[in-house]
């Protein structure tokens, strides 16, 4: 890894190489604006955001004041009951590989990055660790005792090359991944 490249630059480059998009924001307010913009652009009033932490209360308020609903669970667990966009928080990210890491304590938390065709991931800059070794050092205490969270590492949108090796983004999971990066 090129030491002169900061974690953020490396992370961004790797996410993009994996087919995702990174929006770097200078403040949390800007991040909230970016999310609103994405929903507005798609003309959406419902978004899946199960288990979004208290740190993002401002996002919830902002969306609600605008008339959009942040759903904890999909309205119906049927193929047409899934909102177009899911918003999730990434607890960590890995610069080396452009990987987002979600730590989920319950099932709802796992759905927003999985069921909708578009996944918006909220990430704090200081949560980017340099490499995979650092990630597993950080995760070890979480996975060592008591009830353990489910951890999902996400690198780019879902993909398949099962038909004649042709790479297609958007297999069973999202076809679009947007990382909204902001200062803590």
């Amino acid at each position, binding site marked *: 890894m090129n030491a002169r490249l900061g974690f953020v630059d490396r992370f961004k480059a790797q996410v993009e190489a*994996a087919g995702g998009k990174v929006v770097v924001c200078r403040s949390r307010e800007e991040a909230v604006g970016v999310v609103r913009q994405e929903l507005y652009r798609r003309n959406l009033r419902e978004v899946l955001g199960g288990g979004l932490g208290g740190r993002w209360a401002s996002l919830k308020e902002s969306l609600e004041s605008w008339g959009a609903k942040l759903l904890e669970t999909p309205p119906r667990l049927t193929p047409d009951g899934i909102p177009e966009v899911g918003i999730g928080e990434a607890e960590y990210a890995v610069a080396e*590989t452009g990987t987002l890491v979600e730590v989920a304590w319950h099932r709802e938390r796992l759905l927003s990055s999985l069921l909708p065709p578009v996944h918006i991931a909220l990430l704090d800059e200081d949560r980017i660790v340099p*490499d995979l070794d650092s990630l597993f050092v950080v995760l*070890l205490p979480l996975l060592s005792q008591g*009830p*353990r969270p489910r951890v*999902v590492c996400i*690198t780019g949108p879902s993909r398949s090359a*099962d038909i004649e090796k042709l790479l297609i983004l958007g297999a*069973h999971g999202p076809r679009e991944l947007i990382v909204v990066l902001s200062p803590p």
Partner: protein
Amino acid sequence: MSGLPQTLRIQQPPPGFDPGASKVAKAARHATLQRSAAIAEVANWEDLRARAKVIRAYTLEHIDVLLQQLEVNFRGAGGVVHYASDARSACTILLDLARQHGVRRVVKSKSMVSEELEVNEAIQRAGLEVVETDLGEFIIQLAGERPSHITAPAIHKSTEEIATLLSRHLGESLPPDPQALLLAARAYLRKRFLDAEMGIIGVNFAVAETGTLVVVENEGNARLVSTLPRLLVAIMGIEKVTPALLDLATFLRLLPRSATGQVMTSYVSLISGPYPGQELHLIVVDNGRRRILGDPTVREILHCIRCGACMNVCPVYRIIGGHAYGWVYTGPMGAILSPLLLNAETTSDLPFASTLCGACREACPVDIDLPRLLLELRRRAASKVSTPSERWMMSTWAFAGKSRERFSVGGKLVRRFLRVARNLGSVQRLFPPLAGWTISRDLPLPPAQSFRERWRKP
């Protein structure tokens, strides 16, 4: 075990088979190029391989302690561990669980060991529905075939064939366009995911230290299988265990690059226990692995992390394709693992399906000495089946070949003998014990002089 081959033989190619243009060859070459590019940017690739090899060897050396540790930690996180000695007991455990939970519909993500155990057949025999959800596996399940490659199960099928197959099964007319086919399959399978009462997943690594199951994938189907149904069953071979969480940093750098040339796959799930409201079971399967463990000269094959690199680079695999190997494991790795797992009483000719060019070893991310293992299995096959006269001839050949004098004197004698035989009209039909050689072929007449003799005379 019903569908198992009695003897592992290289299967005949179908009529009209054109190796040069085959999809398998093209896909394998493509994968090899991507792999080379992906590992070129890793400065310490050889160090990583060496480290992985050490971890795998340590694991096999301490497998009982590690499995015990895995069980304790998996249980501590709220999961249940079962042990199965063979395919039958594994399927029984699985079906009992299904029965207890009143399961009717099962979704499954890709798992080589479940192919090996013929889990789908068992589930269907019990009257339940089981759907493969990896796109490639789904396609070949509809076609009623077996995967031809471990990371790209349907690479032998053309887009047109897939369109016909999916159109027939999904009841709508689909164009031969990969994007459209994928969308149609996604919609069809989404419903299956949401309806299923039970999910079955394979496991890439199982971390003893934390009781964590690691699932590596690109499509997201393994995530759906492990998240949506309330009953989740994971199946793993005993060799999938690894001591420490930090080992994953090594394996996750090696596996995606070797398999598909990716820096990282789209998803890596770390499943340590069920989430609230879920029930999680792990079936740890032996099915012949302990026998291989107890066989120190060949146990190295259990280091395999199933990346598929060895088959992508293999010149023989590229020409004959995956189905020719006759069972679930293909390529150089399969040529070694299959006969050992099946403990085929009858001889197996799989280890002979190799040119021993060494490309597989070079590609292997955990540095398994595949050519050595192939040679060892050949030696065993030879010592088992050959007749005394064949063995006598082979050892005479070896004796002659080890010295230049003996070789040239021997060569002279054989050439003279064959010329005499020809004059007696017997080169086309040699007499016993050599008759077997000429049943279906003619022995070409050797030249009067050896190469050395001609070289010496200008």
